[in-house]
C-alpha cells in the first residue's frame, strides 16, 4: 500500500511546501470520503446485523440486498424540510450540529490507518482524540439548551454529565497504554506494541481495555448508555427538535464517533495495523496482507460489538450510570495506572 502511494508522492515532493500541501489535501480527501462511506455503510450494516439478530431481514428494497439504502436515506434527509422551533435560540441551534459533526470528523486527522498513512502525525495524538471527543459534548449540550424543548434540555443535561464522567474514566484507562509505549503519538503506540513480546497491549492492559470498552459506549451515547437520547423517556433526547440535514449531522457524527472509538481501541490495545510478531513468524504468508486489512478487521469487530450489545441489553438508569462511572470504572482505571507504573519502574515491562 505504501509502495503504491510512494510513486505519485515522489512527484509531489520536489514541489516543496506546495507539494506537501497537495499531499495533505489529498490525504484529507481520501480519509474523509472513505470514512463517510464507511459511516454510511455502518448504518446499513447495523440495520442488517440487528435485523438478523431479531428474526427480521433489514433493508432489502433499494438496490441489491438493499445496498443503496444509505444513499436513499441520505437523499431523503437532505431534501427534508429543515424545521426550526420558534422558541429556539437560533444561532446556537444552527451551530450545535456543526460542532458535533466537525469535532467527530477532526479526530480522523490523527488516526493512523496503516503505517505512515495519517493526515497529521502529531505527538499528542491520543490527547487530541480525547479533546475532540469532549468537544463533541458541547454540540450536544448546546443543542439541548438551544432547542427550547424540555426533552432536549434534559437530554443535553444528561449527556453533559455522562460525557464528563466517562471522559475521566476513558482518559485514565489510556494512561496505562501511554506508560507502556512511552508516547502519545498513535503511530508510535502501534510500533511499540508491535515491538513488545505479546504484540498487543490488550493482554498486559486488560484492566484498561475493560474500562475503555465500557467508557466508549458511554462516550458515543450508545446502548446500554444511550440515556441522552433515551427514546422511551426523552423522545429522542437532545436532537428531538432537529430535522432534515441537521438531524443527519448528529446521526453521522454519532456513527463517526463510533468508528473513531473503535479505531482508538484498535490502535491502543489491539496493535493497529500490525499482527503480533509470533503470529507472523508462525504464518509468514500473512505478511503479504496489507496492514489496512488487519486494521479494518479489528475496527469492524468493535463496530459489530456495538451492534451486538445494542441488540442484547436494556438501558441503564441515570444514577446507575453515574455510579458505574465513578465507583467502578475510575477506581479500576486508577488501580491499573498504579499497577502498570509499578511494573514499569520494576523493569518488568
Amino acid at each position, binding site marked *: 500500500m505504501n509502495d503504491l502511494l510512494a510513486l505519485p508522492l515522489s512527484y509531489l515532493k520536489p514541489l516543496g511546501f506546495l507539494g506537501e500541501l497537495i499531499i495533505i489535501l489529498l490525504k484529507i480527501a481520501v480519509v474523509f470520503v472513505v470514512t463517510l462511506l464507511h459511516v454510511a455503510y455502518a448504518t446499513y450494516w447495523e440495520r442488517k446485523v440487528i435485523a438478523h439478530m*431479531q*428474526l427480521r431481514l433489514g433493508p432489502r428494497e433499494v438496490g441489491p440486498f438493499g445496498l443503496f439504502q444509505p444513499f436513499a436515506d441520505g437523499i431523503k434527509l437532505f431534501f427534508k424540510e429543515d424545521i426550526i422551533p420558534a422558541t429556539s435560540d437560533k444561532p446556537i441551534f444552527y451551530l450545535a450540529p456543526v460542532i458535533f459533526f466537525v469535532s467527530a470528523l477532526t479526530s480522523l486527522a490523527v488516526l493512523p490507518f496503516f503505517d505512515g498513512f495519517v493526515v497529521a502525525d502529531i505527538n499528542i495524538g491520543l490527547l487530541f482524540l480525547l479533546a475532540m471527543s469532549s468537544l463533541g459534548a458541547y454540540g450536544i449540550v448546546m443543542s439541548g439548551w438551544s432547542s427550547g424543548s424540555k426533552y432536549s434540555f*434534559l437530554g443535553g443535561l444528561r449527556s453533559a454529565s455522562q460525557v464528563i464522567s466517562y471522559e475521566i474514566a476513558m482518559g485514565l484507562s489510556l494512561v496505562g497504554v501511554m506508560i507502556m509505549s512511552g508516547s502519545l503519538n498513535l503511530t508510535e503506540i502501534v510500533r511499540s506494541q508491535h515491538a513488545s513480546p505479546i504484540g498487543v497491549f490488550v493482554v498486559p492492559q486488560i484492566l484498561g481495555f475493560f474500562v475503555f470498552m465500557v467508557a466508549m459506549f458511554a462516550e458515543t451515547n450508545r446502548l446500554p448508555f444511550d440515556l441522552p437520547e433515551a427514546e*422511551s*423517556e426523552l*423522545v429522542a433526547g437532545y436532537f428531538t427538535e432537529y430535522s432534515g440535514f441537521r438531524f443527519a449531522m448528529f446521526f453521522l457524527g454519532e456513527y463517526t464517533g463510533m468508528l473513531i472509538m473503535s479505531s482508538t481501541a484498535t490502535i491502543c490495545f489491539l496493535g493497529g495495523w500490525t499482527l503480533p510478531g509470533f503470529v507472523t513468524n508462525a504464518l509468514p504468508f500473512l505478511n503479504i496482507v496489507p496492514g489496512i486489512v488487519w486494521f479494518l478487521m479489528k475496527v469492524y469487530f468493535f463496530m459489530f460489538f456495538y451492534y451486538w450489545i445494542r441488540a*442484547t*441489553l*436494556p438501558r*441503564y438508569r441515570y444514577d446507575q450510570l453515574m455510579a458505574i462511572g465513578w465507583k467502578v470504572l475510575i477506581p479500576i482505571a486508577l488501580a491499573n495506572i498504579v499497577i502498570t507504573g509499578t511494573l514499569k519502574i520494576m523493569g518488568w515491562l
Partner: protein
Amino acid sequence: MDNLFDDTETTFETKQLTVSLGPQHPATHGVLRLDLDLNGETVVKCTPYVGYLHRGIEKLGENKTYFAALPLSDRLDYISSMNNNVGYVNAVEKLFGIEAPERAKFIRTMVAEMGRLSSHIVWLGTHVLDIGATTPFLLAMTAREKILDLFEILCGARLTVSYPRIGGVRNDISQQFLDELYAFVLDFPSRMDDYETLVTENRIWKERTVDVGIISAEEAINWGLTGGTLRGSGVDYDVRKYAPYDAYDKVDFKVPVGVKGDCYDRYLVRVGEMREANKIIQQCIENLPAGPVMAEAPKFTLPPKDLVMKDMEHLIHQFILITKGPTVAEGEVYVGTEVPKGELGFYFISDGTGKPYRMRVRAPSFVHASVMPRLCEGGLLADVIANIGTIDIVLGECDR
C-alpha cells in the same frame, strides 16, 4: 462554610421543570398523559390525565340491545378483546339466567387464555422495549402473530374477534385449529425460555426493576389494584380462582404471586401467568368435551345463522332479538372476570326491556392509571417508564 452554601442557594434561582409525558409520547402506551414536575431527574409530582380515547362505550351500551352491544366490548382493551367478550357474555348470561353448554365453556376458557397470552406478550415486549432492549419485543411479537393467525382460523377476525356469544360461542372449532393450537402450545415454553434468557436474570434489567415502584399488599388493595399488578405485591387474588366462571374450576393452574411488590415481582408474576395460561390451554384441548356450543334457550340466544338464511321463523326471531332485544327480568348483576390487565367487571341494571338501563364497566386500567402518582413520586424519570410498563394499562379500556 454554611454561609457560603446559603449564598449559592439564594443567588441561583431554581425552578421545577414540568414535563408533559404524552399523550403522543413513544412510551406511554397509547394516549396516557402524565404531567411530571421534575426536580432534576427526580419526579416530585405526577398527575395522570385520561380521557383522550373516550368513546362513550358505557352510554353506547345503553342504546343497543344486549346482542348488538357485544362488539363494543372488543373496543375496550383492544389487545385482549377475547377476554372482554368472555367477561361481557358471562355478565349477560347471568342477567338472562342462562348457562352455556360445557363444550362452549371449555372453548371460551381456551380462547380467553389465548387472549391472555397475546396480551401478556405485548406487555412483555413493550415493557422491555421501554427499558431499552429491542430484541425481546420482536421475538415475542412472532408468537403473538401466531396466536392472531389462530384467531383468524377460528372466527375470521384477528383483533376485534367478537367470537364468544351470549349463551355459547359463535361457531364450533375446527380440527385444523385444534392441531395448530396444540403444536403452538407444545412449542411455547421454549419460546418463553428464549425471552426469559434475554431478560429475567439480566443484570441491567434487575437493576432497573428491582426495588422500583414498591407498593405494599395493604396499599395495593386500598388503591383497588387487581390482576398481576396486585399479585406482584403478594396478594393471592385471582377471579378465576375465587369466583370461577366458564371452565376455570375444571382446569388445574397456579396463581403466581410476588413478595415485595416492586416492578421485578410484577414482571415475574406476569411471566409466570404466561406459562400457566399455556398449561390451561393445553388442558382445555385435552379435556374438550363433545356437545353443542350454544345454549338451548331460544328466548335469549341468537338462532343459528344457516337457519336464519333459510327459515322465515328464525329470521323474524333474529330480527326481533337484534332490534328490540329479549325480554329480561328487572334486576341488576355484576360479574367480574380476570382479564390480562386485572379484574374487568360488567355491571348491568335491567329495567325489563331489551336494552340495559345502565351498563357500567369496571376497567382495571383506569384504576391502575390512578396509582401512577403513588408509584412514581419520589422516583427518577426513568422509573416512570418502568412503572408505566409494569402496571400494564391499555387506554382504550381506561377511557372506555
